[in-house]
């Protein structure tokens, strides 16, 4: 296997939280020891529910948030060790698209200015005409009409705004694009358009995608591998189809069974694994395995020892003391 594009080891992102004037500040471990690799042309789907830290992880990988500990190797270099100017230069190869398509665009700039900004930042030698030409070409590529170049973001629909965001992210030909819930705010009929666009762009340029979403069905469709997060920790990591067809971790199993299937017979026939209880507070995660408070297989061992990610036969990695017993569906 060639060298991975991105190599994350034991990444942790902490937020200090002060409750009350005199209380000690506590630490919210939004991301707690995450490790994974991402290769060229690959899509890694990051799945989890609110509070799992997926958006935080996406931003930390790009150093938009400073990690508390851990290493991020980008193209073999330690991202954490880069100075501000060098980091800015590296940003031309690692981009991000956001969940709220309209909020991600400066309301006072035209489309042309928004999409052209990366060019002005990283290729200052380009003249106006050259910039406009490349912007127009990128707009056509993502399905926007070139004559809309002088319009403002608020004149466009959500799906079109997301295309603008994608055009801006893609114009410098990056190697990695972090997609933070890129279709969650869009209508169902538009979601497929954007997903198809991302896949097409990936096929053309061999770019790697980090696809963050709470919608497991979409993630399965677009990802090669899936990483499941719970309270900032990886619970399962593996091939997308395998993780969805035969999940080993109880949380993944619950997620898979909770995903609604647009098929009445199957949806009503499926055995729904309903989790007990609520998500614990990330400020005060349960001891040992964070999932044990809602897990049907929890034992004393789970409270005492935090499970490690282990490799299993099928190529998946699972963090569970009892994964062997959770074989059947």
């Amino acid at each position, binding site marked *: 296997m060639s060298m991975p594009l991105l190599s994350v080891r034991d990444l942790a992102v902490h937020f200090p939280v002060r409750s009350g004037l005199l209380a000690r500040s506590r630490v919210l471990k939004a991301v707690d020891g995450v490790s994974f690799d991402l290769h060229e042309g690959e899509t890694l789907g990051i799945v989890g*529910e*609110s509070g799992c830290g997926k958006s935080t992880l996406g931003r930390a990988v790009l150093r938009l948030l400073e990690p508390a500990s851990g290493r991020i190797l980008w193209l073999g270099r330690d991202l954490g060790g880069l100075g501000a100017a060098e980091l800015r230069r590296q940003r031309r190869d690692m981009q991000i698209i956001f969940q709220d398509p309209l909020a991600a665009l400066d309301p006072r700039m035209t489309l042309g200015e928004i999409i052209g900004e990366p060019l002005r930042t990283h290729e200052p030698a380009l003249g106006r005409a050259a910039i406009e030409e490349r912007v127009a070409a990128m707009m056509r590529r993502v399905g926007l009409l070139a004559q809309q170049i002088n319009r403002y973001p608020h004149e466009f*629909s959500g*799906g*079109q705004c997301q295309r603008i965001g994608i055009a801006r992210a893609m114009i410098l030909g990056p190697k990695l694009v972090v997609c933070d819930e890129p279709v969650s705010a869009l*209508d*169902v*009929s*538009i*979601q*497929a*358009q954007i*997903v*198809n666009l991302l896949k097409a762009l990936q096929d053309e340029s061999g770019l790697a995608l980090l696809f963050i979403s*709470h*919608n*497991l*069905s*979409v993630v*399965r*469709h*677009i990802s090669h591998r899936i990483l499941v997060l719970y309270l900032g920790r990886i619970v399962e990591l593996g091939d997308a*189809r395998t993780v*969805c067809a035969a999940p080993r971790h109880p949380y993944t199993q*619950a*997620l*898979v*069974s*909770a*995903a*609604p*299937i*647009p*098929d*009445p*017979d*199957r*949806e*009503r026939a499926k055995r*729904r694994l*309903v*989790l007990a209880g*609520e*998500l614990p507070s990330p400020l005060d995660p349960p001891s040992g395995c964070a999932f044990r408070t809602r897990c049907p297989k929890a034992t004393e061992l789970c409270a005492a020892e935090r499970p490690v990610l282990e490799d299993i036969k099928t190529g998946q990695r699972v963090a569970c003391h009892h994964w062997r017993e959770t074989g059947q569906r």
Partner: protein
Amino acid sequence: MPSTRAIDSAPLLAVEHLDVSFATPDGTVRAVQDVGFSLAAGESLGIVGESGAGKSQVFLAALGLLAANGSAAGSVRFGGDELIGLSRQALDRIRGARIAMIFQDPMTSLNPYLKVAVQLTEVLVVHKGLGGDAARAAAIAMLDRVGISDARQRIDLYPHELSGGMRQRVMIAMALLCDPELLIADEPTTALDVTIQAQILELMAELRLATKTATVLITHDLGVVAGLCDRVAVMYAGRIVETADVRDIFYRPRHPYTRGLLRSMPRIDADAAELTAIPGQPPNPQRLPSGCAFRARCPHRLPVCVTTAPELRPVAGSHVACHWDAPEDAAG
């Protein structure tokens, strides 16, 4: 088990030729056009559509909850009584007691300044004339019923002290307290995490079997509808484009929009090499095209679609508003 219910007795809810429009500084916006459907007692109907389809407006109009610049025309008959144009007092007697509605975001539907107990008992005191203690006991029992553990303690909490899933359960409890004949749920699980959504949907399925309350489930999520509803109505740009039994909608969709939607949805249990997206985007409700609103995105459009908006007509057990005839093996 899904079944095709024969509506022999008078339907509980009968909507006919319903129009809802809004007066805006930029002109009149027709949010709902000529919508008609019926719902039998105990039946579960799913209303599916994307943003701008007008699905919520239909029921807001029926319950007299439209914004100040909105107006409704047409007929909505509930148990024989006409709701459109009813006086506020008469509507107040029906709302909460015979028809209950729950909304998408429980945080904004519950009063953040009042304890849960107060909001629950208020409904009982107003509509059923129960005294304070009786009302509180009934409220605690209902909270238990909807799966809130420690109901006796939790009832005295404020809404922000509860999680999203809990708040939605409180909303459901509030809705069911007066034993309504009809429950309207507007995107009840959209704002919830998927595992919590599973809990709430399980609860709603269970309650449906137990209470036999007729339910209308408004959502954009076809998967949710597949699990809970007997019949489904699909809306697009303010009109109903297809109404059918739940299995017909999914296995034999007839309207190109329904077919397109189903083909564009990724599934967790199946492999689709390519999602076939519906091209284009939903029309701006302020600038609806002539004829059929879907024609710009439709792979089967005919010349007549430009001039004439299709009417809902019966086709093999369903109702479809389309000029094109879907082939019999309409597996999509």
